[in-house]
Structures are given as C-alpha cells and as structure tokens.
C-alpha cells in the first residue's frame, strides 16, 4: 500500500465517521451490504479501466458495453434459453473481442484511444437500443436462475457475493499489475512506450492485452449489473459508468499520462465514490446534486495530491541546494 493509498483510506474513514455521526444508518447492515455490492460492480469496472489507463490510454465505451452486453445476456438466458454458464462465457468472450478490436485499432492502425473508444461508446449504445427495438430487456415473470442469482446477487457470511468476487479479482489483478512480467511491461510502456519498444518489448501486444482485460472485466461487470437491475432499458443503462471508472482510477493515483498508479488505489477510489453517493442519499442532499458532489471531491482530491507533490519537490530541491552549496552540481 502506497502513501497515496493510505491517504485515500484515511479520507474514506473520516468521511464515513462524519456521515455516521450525522446519520447512524450509514453503518447499518443493510446499507453496508448495498453499498459494498455497488462498490463491487463499479470496482470491477475501475480495475479494468486501470489496466488501460496505465498504458496511457483510455476506455470510454464502458457504459455502452455494459448496456449492450447486459441486454444480450438477459436476452440469451431469458428469451433464447441459452444455458446460463454458456451465456456467461459467451458474454465474457464478447467483451474480450471488443477489447481486442479497440486495442488493435489503437496499436496497429495508430488511432487515438480517445477516438476509438468514443466511437465505441456511440456504436454499442446504438446497437443495444436497436437490438431491443428501444424496448426493455428483462426476465419473464417467475423466471429464475437460482445458482446464477446466488453468485451475482446472493450473500455468503453476510457479504454480497459480488463483493467477494471483487476481492478475488482485485487480488489476482494486483498480482498481475504489480508483480508480474506483464505488469512491469504495462508500467514501462506507460512511462515511455518508445523506450520500452527499444528494449525489445512487443508493445503492441501488451497494449492490446490491456484492452482485452478491460473488455473482459467490463463484460463481467455487465452481467453483475444485469442481474442486479434484472431489467435493462438500453437507452440509459450504464450511462456515465466509464466516467465513474475513470474517476475512481484517477482518485486512486492513476495518471492519465500513463505509467503511474496502484490497483489498491483504484479500488479505494471506487469505495470513496460510492461512499459519496451514499452520503448524498443519507444526508438528504438533493440527489440532483449527486454529480456535483462527486466532481467537487475528485477535483479537491487531485488538487491536494498535486500540490502536495509540488511542495515535496520544492522541499527536496531546497535541501539539495543547501547540501550542494559547497560541492559541484551533480550534472
């Protein structure tokens, strides 16, 4: 855990304490369970997004992918009667294909990530709406899938299963990002793609892999969201979710320039965002202010972090100059 992560954790605890003091329902079991479920769904998105952002890219189509894949998933199992495990795998595969196409367009055809994924955002939303003829995809009355429902919306030991899934995914992806060869490549590419290429890294493949990971995690999240809402109107389902994911990663210390960030930070960023949502509800702040609160907090967070960095750099320079008065400058 980095210093940044620790700062974020402290902020989460302080905000939590303040909210609890004003409205003790914050710590009620039902509120915690609900919030942790949402943290899980958005957390999985943020982790996927983090893998793309670390390469210096961005994935804007997340919300639309959630609408499209969620719609398809419900359609597969509720209407077309595909067995749910098969549908589950199919949706993840589709997520991988979407990620691959994005990565391929970005690395091989040298398109900008922002442009590619912005087009994705528009295309998938449009396709989803067309697929249901702008109707709502949902389950028929009395239709149920006990195992699937348990895995996605159920609980074990009082914890939502989705949250347990997040913990497992976060641990695995933490190891991948912070300990594996692939993770090191991601960091190197994010820092300086050219130099990474000159070190013999197949940068194109690594970047494509990052988009595939994001696609698969987004697909997984899409299934969770579908099972959580149980009905999807593709015109609005998942709207702005990419921004939640990006915001969480940025709060967690990821630089949009690439090469910087910790996965713990991205998860904590998600926790903070959901806590703020929850705060708006619990403290009776008009929900129309929801986005404004979130935007304000992210801005302040990033500002404090940045100013702190400037302050430390200045202090270091002063120290160095004090030490170096007598000696020669070190190049």
């Amino acid at each position, binding site marked *: 855990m980095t210093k940044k992560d620790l700062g974020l954790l402290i902020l989460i605890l302080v905000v939590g304490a303040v909210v609890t003091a004003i409205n003790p329902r914050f710590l009620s079991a039902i509120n915690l369970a609900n919030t942790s479920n949402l943290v899980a769904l958005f957390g999985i998105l943020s982790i996927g997004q983090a893998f793309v952002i670390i390469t210096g890219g961005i994935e804007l189509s997340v919300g639309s992918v959630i609408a499209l894949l969620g719609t398809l998933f419900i359609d597969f199992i509720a209407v077309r009667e595909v067995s749910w495990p098969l549908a589950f795998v199919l949706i993840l595969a589709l997520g991988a294909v979407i990620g691959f196409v994005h990565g391929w367009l970005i690395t091989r055809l040298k398109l900008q990530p922002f442009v590619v994924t912005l087009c994705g955002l528009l295309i998938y939303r449009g396709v989803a709406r067309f697929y249901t003829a702008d109707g709502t995809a949902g389950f028929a009355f009395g239709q149920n899938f006990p195992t699937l429902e348990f895995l996605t919306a159920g609980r074990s030991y009082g914890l939502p299963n989705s949250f347990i899934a997040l913990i497992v995914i976060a641990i695995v992806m933490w*190891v991948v990002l912070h*300990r*594996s*060869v*692939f*993770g*090191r*490549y991601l*960091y*190197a590419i994010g*820092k*300086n793609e*050219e*130099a*990474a*290429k*000159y*070190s*013999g*890294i*197949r940068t194109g493949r690594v970047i494509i892999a990052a988009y595939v990971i994001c696609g698969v995690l987004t697909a997984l999240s899409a299934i969770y969201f579908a099972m959580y809402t149980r009905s999807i109107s593709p015109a609005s389902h998942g709207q702005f979710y990419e921004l939640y994911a990006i915001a969480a990663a940025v709060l967690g210390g990821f630089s949009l320039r690439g*090469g910087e960030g910790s996965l713990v930070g991205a998860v904590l960023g998600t926790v903070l965002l959901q806590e703020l949502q929850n705060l708006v509800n619990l403290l009776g702040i008009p929900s129309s202010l929801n986005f404004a609160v979130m935007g304000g907090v992210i801005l302040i967070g990033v500002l404090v972090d940045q100013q702190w960095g400037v302050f430390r750099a200045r202090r270091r320079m002063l120290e160095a100059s004090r030490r170096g008065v007598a000696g020669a400058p*070190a*190049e």
Partner: protein
Amino acid sequence: MGHRLLPRAVNYGVMTSTDSTQPTTAPFLSLEAVRKTYPGVVALDRFSMEVRPGEVIGLVGENGAGKSTLMKILGGVTRPDSGTVTVDGAAHDGLTVEQSIGSGIAFVHQELNLFENLDVAANIFFGREPLRAGPLRLVDRAKLREMVAPLLKRVGANFSADAPVASLSLAQQQMVEIAKALSIKARLVILDEPTSSLPMAETEKLLDVIKGLKAQGISVIFISHRLHEIERVADRVVVLRDGTLAGTLPKSHINHDEMVRLMIGRMLKEREKAGEAARAPGSVALSADAIRTSTYPDRPVSLELKRGEILGLAGLVGSGRTELARVLFGIDERLAGSVALDGKPLNVGSAADAVANGIFLVPEDRKLTGILLDLSIAQNISLPNLPAHARRSLVSAGAELATAEKQKKNLGIKAPSVLTRTGTLSGGNQQKVVLAKWLAMNPKVMILDEPTRGIDIGAKAEIYGLMRALADAGVAVLMISSDMEEVIGVSDRIAVMHEGQISGILDKDDFSQENVLLLAVGKKPKLLQTAGGAQ
C-alpha cells in the same frame, strides 16, 4: 593535442586585419577578435570575419568547430566574452536579440519554424497581420495577399500565398522562411544547413534563391556540409576549426580539397594510422544486402559486419546512419533487401525479433529511447530480459537485483544503489545502464549509435574499453559516430555513408580524417594501396 598544424599560408584573403585594402563597399557585418568560452571549453577564439552587402559567404567546419556558437552570437542569443561585433558601422560588444533582428539579420534554421497548419501568407506575417478597421481586429486578407505577393516573387516561389504550408516541399518551406526574412527587411540571411535534408532537385531551387538574394544586394551566410554546393554559390569561404578561423578562401581558391584540408587542419597522427596489429577477421556475423530505408528509399545499402571487429560507421549527420541502425534493429520497416545473421536469413520485423536474435542497439537518444528515466537501474537492466528474471511469470526481485548488482560492478556504474532512479544519474552512467542491459544477455551483434555523445572523457574511455572487450569476446560491434577521432581511434574498419549510401569502406591502413571526410562528402579517398575497400 599534439597534432601538427598545416602551414597557415592557406589564408589567401586574410580577413583578420582591418587595414586590408580591398573593401570596395563597407562591410555590413564584421566580427573582430571574438572570443567565447563555456566552462571548460573555448568555443570561439580570436575569430574575425566580415560580410559585405550582396556577398555569399560559405561557412564550413566539422561538428563542434564553433559554427553554432558563432550563430548564437550573431543572433544575439549569447554575448561574446571579448571582441567586437560591428553591424552597419555601429560597433557593439555583443548583440541583443532585438539588435540582431533590428539590424536585419535573419536566420533560416535546419529545423523550420513554420506553422504547418496555416497558409503561406499567414506564416510570413504571423503576429504582424494587417488588420481591418473595427473592433473585431479581423485580418485584412486582401492587403495580406498584396504584401505577400512581391516577397514570394523575390524568392522565386512557384506556389501561391494561400497554399497550406503542410502541402509544400521542404525547399518550398525554406522559401517561405526566406520570404519571411525578407518581409522584415533582412540584409543578411543566414542559412544553417538548409540543404541537408533536401533531395537534389530541391537543392537546385534553393541555390537559385541564394543567387537571387545576392542579386538583390542581400548578404548570405551559407552553412553546409555539402562542399560542392558551397563551391557553386559562395563568393568566399570561411573555415572554422576548433573554434578558430582556420582560413578564408577567396572565390578563385574555393575548391573541395582546400576546404577539407582547412577543416581537418592537421596531418595524420601516428596513433590513428598504425593502431594495433590487424586482427584476424572473424566470420561474417551480420550482413545486410541491398536494404533500403524509408528516408532514402532509392539507395540500397549493403554491409558486412564481422565477429570480433568494431566497424565504425561514419558520415555526416543526416547521411542515413541512424536509419540503417533502426532498420537493422527492427524499429523501422525494411523496404527492400535482406539481412542475414551468421549466414542464415533473418527477418527482423520488430525490435523484439532483433533482441531475440542477439542483435542489440544502444540508441542515439539515450533519454528518450535508451532507458526509462523513471525506472530504477535494476528495472532498466532486467527489462529486455524480464522473463529470465521471473518465476511463473512473476518478477523475482532477487534475480533482478543480482543481475543489476553484477552489471553495476562490472561496468562501474556510479550510483548509490541499483534501486536508484536512472533519471538522476549522469549521462555517462546512464549510458552504462543502457550497455549493461544488453551485456547481461550475451549479445551477438551490438549496434551503438553515438555511444559517447554528451559523456565526459573518463566515461568515454571506459565505454571504448567495453566495446573493445565485447569485440574481443567475439561480438560484432557496429559503432555509429560523428566524432572523427573516435571513429579513427576505436574502429577496426570504417564504413562511411554519404546521402543514404555506403560511399566507401576504409581498412586500417587508410584511416585518416581526410579520407573519412572525403568519403562523407561523396569524394574518392586517397588510398595507400589500391587494395583498399572503397567502392
């Protein structure tokens, strides 16, 4: 440095004294005993020259001879330590940028300063656009065109004022720059290597523009490595060497050999010639057959690199050396031709392929492509060979540190620890990190592009030692260098490139600065034996 200087008698038209009787017109610009030092270096010393109205001066000298310092003084960017600069009769200790511009000195640099997204007229009058009356401050396009037309005519432009700059050829863009200079009533236009990136036909156009300027009474200082162009347009040639005036050639004495002689200014040194006993040449490690790069798509390059040798690759900046290295290392696409490693055809489609085959590159731009400044020494060294430092795809910090410690010791990398960020190291130590990452993985072919640029003397010697040790261990070493002494002192053979092609290969007996320079400008070298390798 102990080299014998050529007799100073080559100063035909001596410009070092003002009591010369020849000036028919007052000089527009004259420099007198100008001296400029930087910490540890005398960049310019006892330098005097003058430029008369309508005169074309060719300014030549090797890299580092002091040309850029001279340009900075004329542009008002730096002040000389001593000496006087007289412009238009007014003597100064040094110019300010405002004085330089105000007196009509204009520069056209090798890298053009144009807005490619704007049209020609907008570029020429950028920031000085004629405005229409009214509060909106709209640009008066009609007036602008009216003002631009005569300027374009004066440079002989064959394009219109509203052509986007991006659609123009390089020579045309240079014409725009020159027109811009004329628009501020330039009286002296300084062209800094304007032709180095131009193809033949374009060069012709530019030389015509220079003649046109001269006819209009505007003085020109033309800096170029391409001596035949100087021969054609210059009225007088000023040769710089090691920061001093090596000589001035009047029009009647401008010829290629004379310029080269003045530029080098010394006879061969024994060390350069004899060197060590010739090594037994090893088998051919890397061979390139008629490969073409995207910079010079019409020039095939063939080259053989033997085991155990250091092949120096000399040539002027822009002659295609770096491009060749980038193709061999798989960074750039190979347009045609074939490459073989140990006699077997090799298809290098990416740097990863090259690395997998033991072909490594120490690139020219250390900070941008050589190392990752934000990573530690250890992380930089393990990067190209990370799977070998991992167990089940997880990086083993222990293995990484062990390799790094070993390389740090072997190469004498000076740093507090292998966990130090490479961005905080000195240039020499950064370069050692670049070398270390490759040395840790058994190179077969090592390509070094300007390996000692910007590195202090001590580290230089160490890097030469490392290169020699590599060669002795059977590695084929290709060293690209613009440093003449380095090429001659370190190489076993020297290949010289000129405008995208290998213009000749020198064996040890024929090593001399003169021969290298002759080949670099596309002339025949003076070989001791006819058995020399020049084509």
